């Protein structure tokens, strides 16, 4: 530090001499006043540097002597970062992270209003929803069997302890197969009045972790847990370092988590307590600091957890981004993640003694007559959920959001972990000079399009590619949209060239598809980043 200071001093004095010499040579009055101005600026900068450097020295000295035990920085000035940092809202007490990168895509068709009951008769559990499981699980029921909510449906032969259970009671009406005899889904025709499997009694406050784990494995609670890295079914033999729950979703048209969890405080809190027993570290809640008002007390009043506030645009609500800023995933760590409704289902195993898979689902998108919230169960049939709510049939129906959801149809079922259905227009049409005209109706993050001048524009998006796939050309684009210390483009190139060492070094463990989805949306070269990332994750996962 001292050496650096001397060096700085040298540079400054060198600048002075240079300017003084010039000032003395008679080069005309114009150049003279210019030189004087420059001199004044240099003097100011020099003073600033001297003060900053000495201030830094004081801080370092204080740190060495242990004065600054809480690492607050004993500087007499606010740091540069402090000046420009967004102030945390008044309600956000405690750990606060302001994310500057990202972009909110505003679309038409936000779900609003009270939560309505949905009349859905068929429900399904889809084995492909559970990543990391073999494609042909062992099915324990046959077509025609009657099941109660919570009864076992199938298990993975590689991992037979994890039981996948029925979300509703009723009759098994189909076991549909997909490619190469894999099981696509198991469909249950629901009873009018739900019956629940009698669960074994267990007192979570006194039982051991092993007892709790085997209880969850048997009752289906385990299927709600997802493990990172790789976003796979949680391993029963590993103890997670931490468990993370994001209590807000910033994806386009995402449901309002404050709204959908109203009245489920008890189950949510119970779920958090249970999770606290399963991890060796902490249960972390990522809280939303974007709004004018604080989020629901379901989250802010939660006990026995660590909280961290996040402000910023999408993907600030992604749990992966939040993990990165709390305790980054490495090759050696294992963490679990859950959605908020999954936590409530987990808690209900104890508060209600039943596997209550109730889900509030947001029906969203510009192609719906009435976007709204409905109350149903996990795996509801999409056609029945939508009813006659569609404005036309030239649409794409998605389970999830437009960035990372999956393409489905009316005969398909809501994915296990999704709480949103989006309907967007299919964009299979040509546009004359579409690459040149300053289009105002398509979302974009690029300043080259005038729409970005109007930050509040709400769009009616379609699925057109708006261009053709190209090699990576533009640089620095992804970094602006991913609030993580990661070089996404270099990571993608490392995956494409099967460079394992670089993939791990560049942090592939910290990412899953939804985190790079916004980058993929904005990609000028129309590269399929999520697909590339999943290939890389699978490769690294197989290598072990």
């Amino acid at each position, binding site marked *: 530090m001292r050496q650096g200071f001397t060096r700085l001093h040298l540079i400054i004095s060198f600048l002075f001499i240079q300017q003084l010499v010039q000032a003395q040579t008679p080069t005309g009055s114009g150049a003279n006043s210019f030189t004087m101005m420059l001199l004044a600026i240099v003097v100011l900068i020099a003073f600033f540097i001297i003060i900053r450097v000495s201030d830094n020295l004081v801080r370092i000295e204080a740190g060495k002597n242990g004065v600054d035990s809480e690492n607050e920085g004993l500087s007499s000035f606010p740091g540069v970062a402090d000046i420009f940092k967004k102030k945390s809202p008044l309600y956000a007490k405690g750990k606060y992270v302001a994310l500057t990168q990202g972009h909110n895509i505003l679309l038409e068709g936000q779900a609003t209003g009270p939560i309505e009951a949905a009349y859905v008769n068929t429900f399904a559990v889809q084995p492909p929803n559970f990543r990391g499981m073999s494609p042909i699980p062992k099915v324990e029921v046959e077509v025609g069997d009657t099941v109660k909510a919570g009864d076992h449906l199938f298990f993975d032969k590689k991992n037979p302890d994890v039981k996948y259970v029925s979300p509703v009671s009723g009759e098994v009406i189909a076991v549909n197969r997909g490619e190469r005899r894999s099981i696509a889904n198991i469909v249950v025709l629901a009873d009018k009045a739900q019956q629940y499997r009698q669960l074994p009694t267990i007192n979570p406050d006194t039982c051991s972790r092993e007892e709790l784990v085997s209880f969850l494995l048997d009752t289906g609670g385990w299927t709600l847990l997802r493990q990172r890295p790789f976003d796979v079914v949680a391993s029963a033999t590993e103890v997670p370092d931490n468990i993370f729950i994001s209590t807000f979703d910033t994806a386009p048209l995402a449901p309002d988590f404050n709204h959908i969890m109203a009245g489920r405080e008890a189950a949510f809190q119970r779920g958090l307590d249970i999770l606290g027993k399963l991890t060796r570290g902490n249960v972390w809640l990522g809280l939303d600091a974007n709004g004018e008002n604080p989020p629901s007390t379901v989250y802010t009043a939660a006990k026995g957890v660590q909280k961290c506030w996040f402000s910023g645009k999408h993907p600030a609500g992604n749990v992966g981004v939040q993990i990165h800023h709390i305790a980054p995933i490495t090759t050696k760590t294992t963490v679990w993640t859950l959605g908020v409704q999954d936590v409530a289902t987990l808690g209900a195993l104890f508060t209600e003694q039943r596997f209550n898979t109730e889900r509030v689902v947001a029906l969203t998108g510009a192609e719906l007559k009435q976007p709204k919230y409905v109350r149903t169960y996990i795996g509801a049939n999409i056609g029945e959920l939508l009813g006659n709510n569609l404005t036309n049939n030239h649409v794409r129906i998605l389970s999830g959001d437009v960035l990372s959801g999956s393409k489905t149809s009316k005969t398909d079922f809501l994915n296990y972990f999704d709480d949103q259905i989006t309907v967007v227009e299919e964009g299979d049409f040509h546009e004359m000079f579409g690459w040149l005209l300053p289009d105002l109706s398509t979302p974009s993050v690029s300043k080259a399009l005038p729409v970005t001048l109007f930050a509040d524009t709400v769009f009616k998006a379609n699925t057109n590619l708006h261009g053709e796939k190209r*090699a990576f*050309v533009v640089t620095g684009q992804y970094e602006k949209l991913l609030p993580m210390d990661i070089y996404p483009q*270099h990571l993608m190139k490392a995956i494409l060239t099967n460079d394992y060492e670089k993939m791990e070094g560049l942090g592939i463990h910290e990412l899953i598809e939804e985190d790079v989805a916004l980058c993929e949306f904005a990609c000028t070269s129309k590269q399929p980043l999520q697909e590339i990332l999943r290939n890389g994750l699978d490769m690294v996962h197989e290598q072990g």
Partner: protein
Amino acid sequence: MSTFLEKVKSLEPPKEKRFLHTLYDGFFTFLYTPDHTTHGKGVHIRDRMDLKRTMVMVVIALQLCYVFGTYNIGHQHFVALGQHTAFMAAIHLKLAYGLIQILPIFVVTHVVGLGIEFYYAAKKGHGIEEGFLVTGALIPLIMPPDIPLWVLSLAVAFAVILGKEAFGGTGMNVVNIALLARVFVFFAYPTTISGDQCWVAGLEYAGGKATGELYGWSHHVFDGLFNGLGWATFGEGGRAVADAFTGATPLGLASQGWEKVTAVYSPMQMFWGTIPGSIGETSKPLVIMGGLILLATGIASWRIMLSGLLGTAFMAIVFNWWGFDAFMNVPWYYHFYMGSFWFAIIFMATDPVTASSTNTGKWIFGFFIGILGIIIRVMNPAYPEGWMLAILFMNVFAPLIDHYVVEANMNRRKKHLAAVKN
């Protein structure tokens, strides 16, 4: 509108005729954006921005340089001959003269470059990529106005084939294609692009004495038109040059000191660009306006521009301080008046494919371009402008810079991993 679309679609040649089909596809995607939709495995909606629009933004930003460059070719020609020396005098003649010079250059560049691009696209069976849009717009602007067309076509072919197609097409090249074309001319046919005799169009040198060329048929066609309108005409040509004419650019004179430069060109002339030079680079305000378009639209990296500016200023100040010869003593801020710094740093250095791809790397990349450019400009007696070589040199080093930046990121992660384990 849809009937027109159907008409266009009915022209589609069969897929077996690959070259024709590629050609059709190229023009069709120019006319209409394709009806491709997202494939359903990733995002379902896509940004409006694509590579065509990105490239076209750069071409739009270059248009001011084209207009001024065209006019300046004519202006310099007539100033050299001692005719119409006021900037706004005989506008029609200067524009006509400039057009007659620049149009063949533009057409040859595109015919050769696009022809090669189409051929390779057809051969590889993929669509025509828009990379040449920008390259083709840049090449005419960085050539001297009198460049022989056969030299130009050789240079374009060399740059496109060896610089781009050999590496795999758009997005894969290591060095800037436009600069590669220029550096080819520079090393293979140096007399056409260096010295004092190439920067003003339409002069013939014999025994150290220059005379104006005899005007050709194209000039006579314009003369017929201008005669009819009662305006000034080209005449037959063959006039001797004005007594004060040297043909040297400011940088050619600067090695003898700033006084020698200002004896011929005032700083304001250099700033506004009414001086001899490559076609599109002389006018600083217009180049900077193009740069502002690129910055406002977020197409070009402000980091490279800013750090390039800082690097140039830094090195020029160091040379001022050193003060070994007359060129080093040129006040550092006047380095921004001479030569093609602005054009190079705004349009050439910011090419995303050949520049550093990391943000930290971009700072280093731009800064070193600034330093190297001034070093070459001041210390190389043979050729008094450094940006072309500086940028090409840093293009080659950009992957190395990125490697170390990425490596640093990987090390941060490793350190964190070590901290977690303990």
